């Protein structure tokens, strides 16, 4: 027989477990549904290695918030890029519809540059003696974000 305290602790532990698992499931679902924007920067000279994975929905939310508070600054920016905005939107539409492929790959000695679409995400890799930069972003998210900003 459990004492009152033991029962209380068991219930508290079970609640905590459910809470943690719930958050894990929620965050995992957000990652899985919206995709992940990831940026990796590795400076080979000084060993700095930064990897930032962000759920696409979080970035979209931040951009939406930024758009709301930008005000006149955004209007000026939109006016400056108005000439290119339709083309950029069409370009992203085509890119979104395109199948996965390696679009550009350049190899020159140790240097390697890659622009590709993999699993619906646009990936850019620059790998040289000095740095490794890897950026990945779901095309549909980039498309929606650009539509909002432009």
């Amino acid at each position, binding site marked *: 027989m459990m004492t009152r305290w033991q029962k209380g602790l068991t219930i508290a532990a079970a609640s905590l477990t459910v809470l943690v698992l719930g958050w894990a499931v929620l965050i995992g679902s957000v990652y899985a549904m919206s995709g992940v924007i990831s940026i990796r920067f590795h400076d080979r000279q000084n060993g700095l290695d930064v990897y930032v994975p962000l759920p696409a929905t979080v970035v979209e939310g931040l951009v939406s918030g930024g758009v709301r508070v930008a005000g006149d600054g955004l209007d000026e920016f939109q006016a400056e890029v108005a000439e*290119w905005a339709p*083309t*950029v939107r*069409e*370009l992203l539409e*085509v*890119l979104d*519809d*395109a*199948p*996965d*492929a*390696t*679009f*550009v*790959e*350049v*190899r*020159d*000695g140790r240097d390697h540059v890659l622009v590709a679409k993999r699993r619906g995400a646009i990936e850019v890799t620059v790998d040289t003696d000095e740095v490794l930069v890897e950026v990945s972003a779901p095309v549909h998210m980039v498309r929606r974000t650009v539509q909002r900003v432009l």
Partner: protein
Amino acid sequence: MKNLKRSIPLLVIAGLLSTGTARAADLWLHVSVDEDEGATVRVNLPLNLVDKALAMVPEEHLHDGRIVLDDVEWSVAELRDLWREVMDGPDMTFVTVEDRDENVRVWKENGYLRVKAREGLDESTVDVRVPGAVVDALLSGDGEQLNVSAALAALAAHGEGELVTVNDDQDRVRIWVDGTAEMR
């Protein structure tokens, strides 16, 4: 050799221009460059993406531009007049240059504009095979304007095929259109 190297960007642009919209979503433009020193460039782009991307090229590169061929500067209007003469004529060779170091032939054959050039003792070669309809469309603009969109549409309507091959002692360049996303 220098002439061949100078020609490579022009040939790449010719390849890009030789691309449209009718079947653009199904066709891919491929560019492959291999240098003897080991450097490689691979480009695989859906034709409709090329079409949209070219719309972002600053106008000064496409409008009022003059085209330099073998150190002779041609205006787009002059090229347009020349092309009309070519199109109205039968299949024939227009230009033949033969000397000890260089061999160039430009001719029209079965609706294609063909250019073959061989240079130097190392037998560097350039082989260009552009559908006449694409050149037609490219030169269908007004004044000094190249109609790139029309050229792209004409290439898409034309479908798969080899466009440019360059082989010299240092570089190998190939530009072609086919229905696959990856290079074969």
